[in-house]
């Protein structure tokens, strides 16, 4: 029998091929599309295509006409760390309009922000494991995350999008058993970090999939203006809480974990991962100190203005969210906000993807995207 030989179509004769990853893909953390040019299994080029979740935050911010009305929309920028988005925005407005905030509110904001940071990192770590085929850590992370959400729900009334921090203070008073609840969580959570380390951090399959993959050198990271665990994973000790302190972070004693290349090269996926794990311990330290120092008495709405009187001016304020530097650039007029730009860490960190995924395998691309820990709401706003 003669073998049928048909001429190969031109498309098949080409050496490289372009494939789509997303916008519906289980490991793109939302609606991200990556145009990947591959040569066999090797990624030649990875071009992210974003905007599938562009929800017009900036248009809303300037159309609503009032600084206070923008707060719920900031929640929805990066919905995994909603409190940080609120806090960054509110701090910017307070700085611009020169509003003094009571001490108790500052402490409360820090405690909530750090709880949220742990919750966010738990989700980031859990889904990172999920991307690489480890399902159990995801479930373990979510058990702990639910505990934090329960505390936050008791405080604010919502599980995910809180709308709790408002210009000049907090939406309502702190529940009486907040301190005891938080202490209970801290004491229960410490041993769980060890458990998580046993499950994932030192797991040889996990190390195999993440060490020496997606290496981001420090100078490239700085040139791309990377921030958060992405920058610290590359060995740069840069944390806005310490280097450009805001709120009352200068009162607490904590360390900045950086990537040291313990299992591979400095700045690989594993380093970015371990920075997040260690940051959770640092957050616990901050919460403990803040709980000890926080005054028990005091009105949390003392400085909340009835109607926010706007001033003409502009400001750029940056804060440290779980994903890195969140900046709000506010131009304000007498009538209210004129232009608000949110510079989100997810957006900037994702723009590095083409630079660090060249030459990686397709399966490694999943690890790299997971290690950047993007939230598409933050990327697209």
């Amino acid at each position, binding site marked *: 029998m003669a073998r049928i030989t048909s001429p190969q179509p031109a498309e098949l004769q080409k050496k490289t091929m372009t494939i789509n990853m997303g916008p519906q893909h289980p490991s793109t953390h939302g*609606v991200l599309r990556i145009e990947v040019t591959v040569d066999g299994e090797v990624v030649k080029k990875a071009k992210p295509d974003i*905007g*599938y979740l562009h929800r*017009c935050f900036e248009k809303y911010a300037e159309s609503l006409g009032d600084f206070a009305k923008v707060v719920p929309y900031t929640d*929805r920028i990066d*919905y995994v760390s909603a409190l940080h988005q609120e806090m960054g925005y509110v701090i910017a407005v307070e700085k611009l309009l020169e509003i003094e905030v009571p001490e108790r509110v500052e402490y409360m904001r820090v405690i909530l922000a750090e709880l949220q940071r742990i919750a966010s990192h738990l989700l980031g770590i859990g889904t990172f494991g999920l991307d690489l085929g480890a399902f159990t850590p995801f479930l373990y992370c979510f058990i702990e995350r639910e505990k934090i959400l329960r505390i936050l729900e008791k405080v604010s009334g919502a599980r995910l999008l809180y709308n709790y921090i408002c210009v000049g203070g907090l939406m309502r008073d702190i529940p009486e058993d907040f301190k005891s609840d938080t202490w209970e969580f801290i004491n229960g959570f410490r041993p769980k970090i060890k458990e998580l380390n046993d499950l994932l951090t030192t797991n040889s399959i996990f190390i195999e999939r993440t060490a020496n993959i997606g290496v981001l050198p420090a100078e490239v990271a700085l040139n791309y203006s990377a921030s958060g665990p992405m920058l610290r994973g590359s060995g740069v000790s840069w944390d806005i809480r310490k280097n450009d302190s805001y709120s009352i972070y200068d009162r607490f004693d904590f360390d900045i974990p950086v990537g040291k290349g313990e299992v591979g090269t400095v700045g690989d996926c594993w380093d970015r991962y371990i920075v997040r794990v260690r940051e959770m311990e640092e957050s616990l330290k901050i919460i403990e100190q803040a709980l000890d120092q926080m005054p028990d008495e005091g009105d949390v709405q003392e400085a909340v203005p009835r109607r926010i009187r706007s001033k003409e001016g502009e400001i750029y304020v940056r804060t440290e969210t779980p994903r890195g530097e969140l900046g709000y650039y506010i131009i304000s007029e007498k009538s209210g906000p004129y232009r608000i730009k949110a510079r989100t860490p997810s957006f900037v960190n994702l723009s590095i993807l083409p630079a660090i995924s060249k030459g990686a395998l397709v399966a490694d691309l999943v690890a790299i995207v997971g290690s950047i820990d993007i939230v598409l709401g933050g990327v697209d706003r």
Partner: protein
Amino acid sequence: MGLLDKKYHDSNIIIVSLESALNWARKSSLWYEQFGLACCAIEMMATAASDYDFDRFGVIPRSSPRQADVMIVAGTVTMKMASRIERLYEQMSEPRYVISMGSCSNSGGPYWEHGYHVLKGVDKVIPVDVYVPGCPPRPEALLEGFLKLQDRITNESIIEPKVSEESEKKTTGKEPVGAE
């Protein structure tokens, strides 16, 4: 076997109509298309994870639309995404169901006024069976949505053929549950 263990003396035959047996099987293994859009996706993940545990209703995530029975539209649908959602829906094999989760996919939610790039309700591109309100809905609310969908499946009949997609669109779809 739990509840049924050692309860029958001789044979263990249950007489039931084919229809209800089929529907019982279908409603107890609703596999959902795993793709999150926005904030609601995080709550969807929370529902699937340890505390709320989707699996006990037989609800399991699938990564491909071709293996899925139900699509949860969890989050804001934008203009750029709308055509993709339509395509994903077309790729699902019948019978297929859609749960619209959260205010954004129900009606545009908080983005209905100035959201130039936001689709004001996913029902503009695909038919929806169950609407779950909330911004974002609690995991309990999503579970309730699934129970409502199970109710709907229980009442479906094999005698009358399922309305085809075209006429479904023409007659503005079935009476949606919880639309009011």
